[in-house]
């Protein structure tokens, strides 16, 4: 057990170390792609706290992401760069506030109904930015100047943005890892396994779920903020249900119930997308990249019921299973 935990830790540390040295070998395109993927990983982690940590399947996560992104653009002054010191917390806070409202109402429902109510609230946010001039309507709006932190950190420089995003990813991962080991995280796990029993033990589960939902919204808002800063542009598609679906697909692909599953899933999803989109490999067929992605997803459901995280365990079981069958066969005289 002890060994297993340290090997998991080693895996995560190796991932972060690889991300830290990656800019040394990568070109501009690679840095941009991995920055985007790390933003998605943060986004996926925010959803993992709900789905894997608490057992709440939220189908409206893109709303919080989008609100973070829109807040980053709308709160930035027109005439110069804003300070990161207040803009980032403001974006996360805006998303958290909406999450608090949505959570307070939607946590009254359960199961598939919860999935649909969170979708409904996300669609409401989507139509607000889509149909009103507030955020530039369907065209979206541009961020005139990217935020800075004094003279220290100018997020307009891709390499600095990469570093900042990586730091945010590590911070979020560390925070969620600590959270899951805390009393609060244990209570969430208890709610996931058996909410009835948790209540019988004397826990008022509603505030716990609401707190998890709000924290998750804040983290998604952080991811949205980083996305807006990276692209310098936001549009309503950031809040569409396709995006909420995509992030859900990422964490299922990676493996629900493990923080590193969200990490692996986000990277696997981005890599698969780039792979099937690459014209070097598929030529003109690269236009139909979704076909390859779809078939891979179907194959992963058939072959990897526990997600990518479960692959080593599956191999181990298969090897052990074969060994034990052989032992069985030798023991029983035929």
């Amino acid at each position: 057990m002890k060994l297993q935990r340290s090997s998991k830790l080693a895996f995560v540390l190796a991932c972060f170390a690889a991300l830290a040295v990656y800019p040394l070998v990568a070109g501009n395109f690679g840095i941009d792609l991995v920055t985007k993927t790390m933003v998605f990983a943060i986004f996926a982690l925010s959803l993992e706290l709900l789905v894997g940590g608490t057992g709440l399947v939220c189908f409206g996560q893109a709303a919080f992401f989008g609100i973070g992104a829109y807040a980053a653009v709308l709160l930035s002054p027109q005439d110069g760069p804003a300070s990161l010191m207040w803009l980032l917390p403001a974006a996360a806070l805006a998303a958290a506030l909406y999450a608090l409202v949505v959570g307070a109402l939607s946590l009254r429902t359960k199961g598939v109904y919860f999935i649909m109510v969170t979708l409904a609230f996300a669609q409401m946010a989507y139509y607000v930015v889509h149909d009103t001039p507030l955020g530039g309507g369907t065209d979206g709006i541009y961020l005139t100047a990217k935020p800075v932190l004094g003279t220290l950190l100018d997020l307009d420089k891709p390499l600095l943005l990469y570093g900042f995003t990586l730091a945010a990813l590590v911070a979020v991962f560390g925070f969620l890892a600590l959270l899951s080991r805390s009393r609060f995280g244990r209570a969430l796990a208890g709610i996931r396994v058996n909410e009835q029993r948790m209540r019988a033990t004397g826990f008022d589960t509603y505030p716990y779920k609401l707190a998890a939902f709000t924290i998750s919204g804040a983290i998604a808002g952080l991811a949205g903020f980083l996305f807006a800063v990276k692209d310098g542009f936001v549009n309503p598609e950031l809040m569409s249900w396709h995006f909420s679906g995509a992030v859900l697909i990422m964490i299922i692909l990676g493996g629900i119930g493990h923080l590193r599953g969200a990490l692996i899933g986000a990277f696997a999803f981005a890599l698969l997308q780039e792979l099937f989109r690459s014209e070097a490999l598929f030529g003109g067929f690269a236009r139909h990249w979704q076909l390859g992605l779809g078939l891979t997803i179907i194959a992963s459901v058939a072959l990897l019921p526990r997600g990518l995280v479960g692959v080593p365990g599956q191999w181990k079981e298969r090897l052990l299973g074969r060994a034990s069958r052989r032992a069985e066969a030798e023991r029983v005289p035929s």
Partner: protein
Amino acid sequence: MDLATFLIQCLNSLQYGLLLFLVASGLTLIFGIMGVINLAHGSFYMIGAYMAFALSPVVASFGGGFFAVLGVGVVLAVLLGYALEWAFYSYLYEREHLQQVLMTYGLILVFEELRSLLVGDDVHGVAMPEILSGSFPLGQMMTYPVYRLFISAVCIALALGMYLVFTRTRLGMMIRAGSTNREMVQSLGIDIKFLYRVVFAAGVAIAALAGMVAAPVSSVYPGMGSSVLIICFVVVVIGGIGSIRGALLAALLIGFVDTFGKVLLPQAAGVLVYVLMALILLWKPDGLFKAG
């Protein structure tokens, strides 16, 4: 709004609601009976609409008209549903909901790209049959197309048919029993796998038929499946999962709210349906009719 306009909007709402009901009924059946969250259900609607477009020249070369296209399309859809259930969905019954979401999401991507490969990404119109292409006067100034009434009539006929199959036939009894307790029905000697396959194929065929009859009005375009999917999930959830009666009521409600919303409050039309769903679920967290 004068009386004639009001009547026309009512008829439009009715037609839209009934069409939603057709797609949503298959969704709620598959969900309620087999427990599968089928994200690909919107794709079946899309496939139906594209069949209406792609089959009509083929069928016309044999001298068949629109109704022959419908017939051929339904047969093809049943075969497709049967094959899909056998190849993909039958593995999903024992799995978690999220695994089902993942696989059916993969299927959406595959169907969309196959559609793009086979038919292309252009918007196409589908001709309506000549007998139904007229319109009749309503009030002094307005007319109403006969074809839209035809859509409503088809939907009502199918809804009645479903109701009768469910409540009056042995098959319906087996389906209802199978949704309550799969193992028990199996141990009574009923081939539940076959039963599920039939229900699934029927759900696919109904969604495809909805797509086919809607095609002349809505035309066929990429992404038509996913837009109808989400609204149908809204219908299923408002109505209460697994309840056909609830789906009918919810679909009509959505039809009226959406159509009149577009006329009376055009700025907020998109959001009204979701506000309605949120309100209903906050009032009744299990939908209007909980299937028992």
